[in-house]
């Protein structure tokens, strides 16, 4: 029993990261119908931004306590990562959109932007791994054979809170209505007096900001940073978003946790060598039964 509970906790933590990243994919797709393949790398940039903020604030010139650093680093990381996302939108995606380029070209541009971020990082910072400093004092709680760290709780809570927040924004606010409107008909929306560019920028702020948060939490949980850390997890989170039904906030959230549970579950039952083989076979089966994903609806307003 303890063994099962422990694995559920492991899956919840791992799924939280998939969910947080998948939310960013789904937001941008929901509004622009654009698969922002650079998202995993924005997550990586978020982790690096958090690293530099944390080391600066812990350093002698500021000398803040680790906890204060954490409190300040969360909003700052989110804000700075959001700037990176918005910059990408301004210099890469918007010019193409203005010229009426086909979505395919924008997706390829996104892929290239991701590679530029990865190799730019490699060129500037070198290939050496960075060690993320400890920001909150780790405490390990154990009940029976089940162990839990405070960091795990923070990660899981953060994923749930972000989901509830985004779901509220998209379904209950005016700006959320505008976002849904753009995905419905992006030619009619400007005629209604809605500033389409600002809404898109806002979408990127949300998506990239939470990628930054995910990067910070990830760096705290797995404190080794490298330029390619966002690649695999980004792809997997994208798959999670598709399985959940891309464009749907709930889909990204549940899809992320589903992937986390499947990956951990496969290792629990089968030899760990088969993890990805089994995990993705199960996901393939889900898409085979429901090609639009769990929450997706064919040809409807998405987001």
């Amino acid at each position, binding site marked *: 029993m303890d063994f099962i509970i422990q694995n559920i906790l492991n*899956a919840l933590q791992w799924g939280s990261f998939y969910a947080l990243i998948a939310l960013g994919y789904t937001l941008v797709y929901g509004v622009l119908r654009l698969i922002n393949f650079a998202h995993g790398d924005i997550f990586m940039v978020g982790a690096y931004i958090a690293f530099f903020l944390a080391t600066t604030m812990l350093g002698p010139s500021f000398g803040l306590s680790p906890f204060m650093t954490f409190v300040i680093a969360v909003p700052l990381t989110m804000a700075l990562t959001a700037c990176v996302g918005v910059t990408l939108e301004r210099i890469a995606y918007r010019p193409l959109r203005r010229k009426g380029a086909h979505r395919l070209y924008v997706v390829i541009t996104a892929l290239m932007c991701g590679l530029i971020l990865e190799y730019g990082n490699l060129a500037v910072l070198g290939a050496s791994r960075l060690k993320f400093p400890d920001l909150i004092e780790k405490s390990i709680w154990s009940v029976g054979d089940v162990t839990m760290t405070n960091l795990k709780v923070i990660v899981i809570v953060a994923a749930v809170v972000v989901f509830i927040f985004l779901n509220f924004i998209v379904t209950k606010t005016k700006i959320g209505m505008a976002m849904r409107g753009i995905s419905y008909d992006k030619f009619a929306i400007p005629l209604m007096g809605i500033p389409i560019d600002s809404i898109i920028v806002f979408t990127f702020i949300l998506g990239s900001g939470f990628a930054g948060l995910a990067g910070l939490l990830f760096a705290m949980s797995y404190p080794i940073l490298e330029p390619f850390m966002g690649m695999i997890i980004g792809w997997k989170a994208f798959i999670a978003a598709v399985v959940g039904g891309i464009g749907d906030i709930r889909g990204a959230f549940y899809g992320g946790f589903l992937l986390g549970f499947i990956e951990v579950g496969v*290792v629990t039952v089968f030899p760990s060598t088969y993890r990805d083989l089994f995990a993705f076979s199960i996901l393939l089966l889900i898409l085979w039964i429901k090609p639009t994903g769990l929450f997706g609806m064919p040809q409807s307003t998405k987001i």
Partner: protein
Amino acid sequence: MKAFFKGAGLLGLMLVCSAFLLAGCGEDKVQTIKIGFNLPLTGDIPEVGEGSKNAAEMYLKDINDAGGLDVGGTKYPLEFVYMDNESKAESATNVALKLIDQEKVVAIIGPNSSKQAVPAGGTCNDNRVPMISPWSTNPSTTLDRPWVFRAAFLDPFQGPVVADFAAKKFNAKTAAVLFDVSNDYSKGLAEIFKTSWEAKGLGPVVAFESHGTKDQDFSAQLTKIVSTNPDFLFVPNNYNQVALIVNQARDLGYKGPFMGSDAWGTPDLVKLCGEQCYGNYFSTHYAAAGAQGATKVFIDRYTELYGATPADYAALTWDSIGMLVEAIKNAGQVYSDPVEMRTAIRDGLAAIKSFDGITGASKFDAQGDPIKCAVVVKISDDGEFVFEESVCP
């Protein structure tokens, strides 16, 4: 007209690009001995490439400051070409081909890790170019490959060393293993260890789990391992993964000791892993602390030049170059044709029966593999690698 300029521009661009291709073709006036290095300068283990390159630069400076390498009465300067294999198997074979066909090197040193050395060794053997891997311990690297040599001991030796040490030191009856399934080195060593542990008859390997190279979360595997309650956990992985595995295992309530292999031995291990790694043991090629003689001279010079203690791969690279130099001397003459020179070097390498390097003395068996001693090292409470014991075959 516009189309014409566009076409002319494209043509110009292509000409400029092809000029880069030709850039490597310039003829050297002085006859040099050109040696290629196939190193992981980026990717998963950049520290390893860096250390090897540093050691090579030091050796190169020594030789060339003395006017070159004395072969048969004439001095030939050495020329080293470093190329990055990104710690990837496919890039390592590309780099080997590039060094052979484009740079026309007479011998290749590297790749370091077996993950790259096994495939690159095949490429070098097929192209009849002598290759020395400094750090690769997997038997397949040199097996049935007359053109491939190495400076390190082999995993069939290292596996039992680890098993014997753990049985004695931890009084262990049961063992668990967590290895990287996509890494030839890690997988091979894990399997050899499993066989040698079970052969001892003390107890079973209670958990034998694996993960992928890019994985960051090992909680599922570790939960499984912790629930089987092993006496120690053997982690034959690269240092970057070790740092994550050790910390996550402790978070999941694992209290027992860890045992590592030679891939642990980098200064980055302690930097990334922190205090959690202190007090654990790993097998390796040499221990920097307490070294004597030529080894100490090398360590002191390296430390002065680069501000860090040389890790085992740096020392092994130094020895690999030493072996190569001896092989060139054995050849007795420098041919201007790289193909002839390669054959002469291979014969020269095969003629080396024993070699006294800074990582210890070694004898070579029929396969061209060195037979030499291994060292078990403890990570002390200040994060230093301290000599624990030496095991000789």
